[in-house]
């Protein structure tokens, strides 16, 4: 449709990292007025291509032409000067400064007396308003926001800069549906104004909803460029993974509805578990071999509740019983000793140890549990590492490579391996599939089902309601840092059922939080806590 | 008590009647000599003797902190200031302020440069240059046929180092002793040993005399000499300055060859001067504290029993 010259044209781009060819002769074009999706599995080289374009990495060979001129940027600032604005995959903001400053940093409005803060904050508010964030106080420190909100701020920042090219690397990975809609609205407006948008996401729905054209990468190689409407999902996925997808068609077929008997003794039983300002007192039972989903909107307190169970934050009220014994979990180390494992949603800050190798990262929790005086013998290490690299399909399969050199999705798999190596009774997975490609997502979902089958209890937290509904036997619904109900999964339960519970709770008066939720049997949650306060 | 018309340290001294407040701008811990000296001053200006001594040592031997302390005493309005400067220069402004505040200043140990005698009452001190000169004279006499010698110095740039070097060279006169090296050993025994050890090797043990600018370094040098298989007194002679008890002991044991005292005990003299200054009496602008030389084990042994520091 665009017969004019592309605004960005990359030819034969190659980048080699120690031991990996991250990009191998990749071509890419981007036209004005289009949303162009860059597709590929984890580690395919999407983020690397973006960093090559914006000068974060030097290229080994190839050429980059922007607006008809051969360019080699020497960093983001260069690229910005040439009209390319980027939101990288990792949220890149500075938490010590205010929200407004983060939006405007480097573009502050200046007056005769240096930066005009009033005008700068006003401009920031304007930028935020476009994404529906007009309620944010731009003077608050960025650190007061959740990761998701920070992601929105990062996007606002990219949009505040009047750019000809806008690059968004997985901007939606932690956004909820409404926020994604808002983002798409703005993206369409920009596209219609002639901005060229490069978009990366692992959500196929989103790709089909927003993109005009897409480029597929596989293992650092160029597969092809297609018009989105001419390529159906099946074909796209085949192109991404390089083979036909029988395995993937099974996705969604393995819904787990076999309810446990209620009288079976729970593995973990929390009563009135809470923490001031973070989680309202909550009752929770998790039985052997059961997958319990935590559902709720962003910021509803799912992560916080999970962190209490794991001792990552200290509960200030309530008790937790483990196999009928009251256990005092004061720290992750305590939890681990009691066979509870927790995979964090914040992979970069709380998950990986960047400079250590895949092997070291994988055995770390098991080692911590055993204590430093009992090192895991080399042979056992090899067994563990080889096993989980193979089972979880970690790529590259080299255990001695620093984990920081792996793509995000593969880092996630290594971390999953870390927890499985400790053979926990209860495994808490917080957003394990965030930012993960279809193939890997299926791998992980498969693994969860398999583990539960083998008798492990799993708490599964995800912003994708379908995924929660598909995997969980029981769904705990949270809202405003409070458990508002529980849904026993069944054939008639859908994502909509969960949404209904949440919506219904909003309608009820706040005074009574013990309401019945439709779509499943709801349990009173606050009863114990109220007794305590009396 | 005379001079001070508005009594300083209103609260600090209030309980104890009419004490004279003396601000002592001191050097602080530096080594055996300084320790003896400042303790002597503190033991002299006691409350029983009618004084309230305010002791303000320097931080890190830093002149800046001394100036701060001096300023603070002036602001506070003490009756007299005793000043043991770490460095001779840079005191004019401070002394002028003291003069304006009518606070007499008595220099202990170190003088000031330029030496404007109108700015202070008197200077009480042994004479560094003179003491070092005597060491030089002794060395020149000990080695009439010449020989090689090394100097162990304090940190480069410190006033004492420069003065003791100057005096020593003067004392040597036209002696045929040859200086083969001068290195800092930072006033320390351990470094004195380590430096001497290396210098002996780099000169194939062909060193006949070591001048250590303080006792501590000399004691270290002595050990290095012995470990190199040489004998102090016959193969190598070692001279030091300060005359601390450790050094006199070593001299008595034959581990040093010559120790020149740098007499730290002039508290009584200072007390006299303070009295006179407050009474408005005239005092000489420089009172030299006599220092003894010990040039033999016998002399050292004789002095040992009543060595105070």
């Amino acid at each position, binding site marked *: 449709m665009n017969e004019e010259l592309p605004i960005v044209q990359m030819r034969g781009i190659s980048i080699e990292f120690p031991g990996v060819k991250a990009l191998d002769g990749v071509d890419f074009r981007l036209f004005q007025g289009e949303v162009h999706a860059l597709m590929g599995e984890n580690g395919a080289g999407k983020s690397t291509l973006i960093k090559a374009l914006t000068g974060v990495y030097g290229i080994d060979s190839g050429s980059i032409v922007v607006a008809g001129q051969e360019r080699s940027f020497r960093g983001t600032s260069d690229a910005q000067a040439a009209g390319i604005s980027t939101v990288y995959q990792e949220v890149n903001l*500075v938490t010590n400064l205010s929200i407004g400053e983060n939006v405007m940093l*480097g573009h502050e409005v200046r007056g005769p007396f240096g930066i005009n803060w009033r005008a700068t904050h006003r401009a920031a508010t304007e930028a935020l308003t476009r994404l529906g964030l007009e309620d944010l*106080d731009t003077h608050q420190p960025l650190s007061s926001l959740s990761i998701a909100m920070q992601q929105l701020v990062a996007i606002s920042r990219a949009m505040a800069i009047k750019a000809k090219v806008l690059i968004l690397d997985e901007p939606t990975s932690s956004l909820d549906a409404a926020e994604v809609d808002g983002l798409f609205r703005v993206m369409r407006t920009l596209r219609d104004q002639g901005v060229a948008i490069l978009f990366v996401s692992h959500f196929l729905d989103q790709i089909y909803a927003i993109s005009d054209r897409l480029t597929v990468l596989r293992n650092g190689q160029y597969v092809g460029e297609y018009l989105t409407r001419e390529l159906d999902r099946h074909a796209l996925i085949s192109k991404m993974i390089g083979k036909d997808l029988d395995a993937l068609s099974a996705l969604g077929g393995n819904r787990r509805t076999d309810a446990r008997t209620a009288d079976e003794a729970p593995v973990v039983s929390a009563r009135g578990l809470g923490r001031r300002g973070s989680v309202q007192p909550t009752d929770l039972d998790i039985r052997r071999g059961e997958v319990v989903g935590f559902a709720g909107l962003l910021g509803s307190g799912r992560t916080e509740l999970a962190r209490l169970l794991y001792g990552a934050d200290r509960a200030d009220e309530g008790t937790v019983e483990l196999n009928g014994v009251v256990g005092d979990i004061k720290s992750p180390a305590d939890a681990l000793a009691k066979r509870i494992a927790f995979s964090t949603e914040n992979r970069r800050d709380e998950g990986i140890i960047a400079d250590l190798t895949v092997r070291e990262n994988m055995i770390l929790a098991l080692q911590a549990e055993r204590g430093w005086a009992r090192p895991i013998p080399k042979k056992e290490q090899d067994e563990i590492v080889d096993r989980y690299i193979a089972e979880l399909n970690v790529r590259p399969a080299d255990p001695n490579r620093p984990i920081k050199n792996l793509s995000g999705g593969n880092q996630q798999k290594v971390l999953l391996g870390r927890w499985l190596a400790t053979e926990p009774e209860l495994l808490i997975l917080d957003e394990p599939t965030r930012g993960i490609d279809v193939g890997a997502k299926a791998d992980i979902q498969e693994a969860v089902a398999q583990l539960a089958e083998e008798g492990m209890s799993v708490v599964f937290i995800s912003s994708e309601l379908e995924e929660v509904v598909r995997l969980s036997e029981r769904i705990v619904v949270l809202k405003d840092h409070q458990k508002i109900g529980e849904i026993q999964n069944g054939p008639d339960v859908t994502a909509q059922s969960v949404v209904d519970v949440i919506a219904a709770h909003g309608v009820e008066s706040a005074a009574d939080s013990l309401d019945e939720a439709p779509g499943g049997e709801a349990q009173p949650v606050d009863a114990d806590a109220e007794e305590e306060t009396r | 008590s005379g001079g001070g018309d508005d009594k300083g340290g209103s609260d600090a001294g209030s309980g104890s009647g009419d004490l004279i407040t003396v601000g002592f701008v001191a050097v602080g811990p530096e080594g055996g000599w300084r320790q003896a000296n400042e303790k002597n001053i503190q033991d002299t200006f006691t409350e029983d003797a009618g004084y309230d001594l305010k*002791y303000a040592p320097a931080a890190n031997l830093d002149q800046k902190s001394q100036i701060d302390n001096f300023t603070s005493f002036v602001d506070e309005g003490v009756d007299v200031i005793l000043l043991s400067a770490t460095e001779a220069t840079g005191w004019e402004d401070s002394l002028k302020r003291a003069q304006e505040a009518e606070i007499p200043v008595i220099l202990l140990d170190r003088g000031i*440069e330029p030496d404007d005698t109108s700015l202070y009452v008197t200077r009480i001190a042994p004479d560094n240059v003179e003491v070092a000169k005597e060491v030089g004279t002794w060395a020149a006499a000990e080695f009439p046929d010449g020989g090689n010698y090394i100097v162990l110095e304090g940190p*480069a740039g410190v006033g004492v180092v420069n003065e003791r070097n100057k005096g020593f060279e003067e004392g040597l006169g036209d002696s045929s002793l040859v200086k083969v090296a001068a290195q800092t050993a930072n006033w320390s025994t351990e470094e004195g040993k380590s430096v001497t050890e290396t210098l002996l090797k780099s000169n194939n043990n062909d060193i006949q005399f070591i001048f250590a600018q303080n006792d501590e370094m000399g004691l270290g040098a002595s050990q290095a000499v012995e470990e190199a298989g040489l004998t102090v007194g016959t193969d190598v002679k070692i001279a030091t300055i300060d005359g601390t008890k450790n050094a006199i002991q070593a001299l008595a044991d034959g581990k040093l060859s010559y120790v020149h005292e740098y007499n730290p005990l002039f508290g009584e003299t200072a007390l006299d001067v303070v009295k006179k200054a407050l009474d408005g009496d005239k005092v000489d602008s420089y009172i030299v504290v006599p220092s003894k030389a010990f040039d033999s084990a016998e002399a050292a042994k004789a002095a040992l029993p009543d060595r105070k520091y």
Partner: protein
Amino acid sequence: MTVLTEAPARTDAATGVMTRIRRLVSTNPSTLPTVAAVAILIAMVVYGEIAYGRIVQANTLSNLLINNTHLIVLAVALTFVILTGGIDLSVGSIIAFSSVAGVMLSNAGWHPLAVLVVMIGSGSLFGLVSGILIRYFNVQPFIATLAMMFLGRGLASLLSTVPERLGEDSPLRWIGTQIKVVDGPKVNDLVITPAVIVALLVVVVAFFVLHRTRTGRTVYAIGGSENSAALMGLSVPRTKVLVYVISGTLAGIAAVLYTGRLGTAQNITGIGWELDAIAAAVIGGTVLTGAYGYVLGSVVGALVLGLMNVLITRDGKIPPEMTTIITGAILLVFVLLQRAVTRKKE
């Protein structure tokens, strides 16, 4: 985080100073240590006045400023560097080199302006070398500036190991001339020196740069996350070099102020002053890992240190071996206090 929800409720009642401070602190908890430092400075003044007297009087307060001009300037220098997460150990040595070189050139008959340029410029040069080592060769700030610390000291000692006296008539001495604003009885005058004015100017300019220019905001951003700052398109390399140049330059200025006041220069001047400056910055609320801190806080920190010395001198009964222990203990009390307040608030 809980503070955040409280903040809006209080805005209406924003009248008195206390309320405003509380609001400042609650919206921005990182200001808290600085506010605490101010409070402690005031408390120290009050304690000193009650216990020893003659603290709140013109001369004591003037001298507090005059004696600490160079420390104030150095604290500002360190603030820039520390905010980026770096450190500069070389400032003390730079002062030694710059002042010895300056005095020698001045005595050799150089024009005072040329001397000034050399003194300040040599500081900038040291900073530039540190900056280049750090930025382009990835040398850690601690090590790069440690090397410059040795280098500065060594070069100063090579120039001269004896005190160099500035000529009696040298215009540089003007920096230290005492101007009596209020001539009180005896020495109880309100005095100011050009050096103090220069130091205050430095503070004002530094404040402006840090809070009202993009460069300044980049300094904070680098401290927050160097990686993010670079990905946000800020000029990280330039700014990183710049902070060390600024720090070196300010050390050069401090050398001018100190030399002008004392009239002599020496190779052993400034030993350990980098630690004083770091302590001042820390006491003023600057976090050593970067990102949080205020230049005004550092100034307060410098004054706290200065006042602490005055109080120790006034007391006069503290045995010599205790002084370093006391300095250490007071520093400890300060950081513990800050730690306690910041913890409670967060």
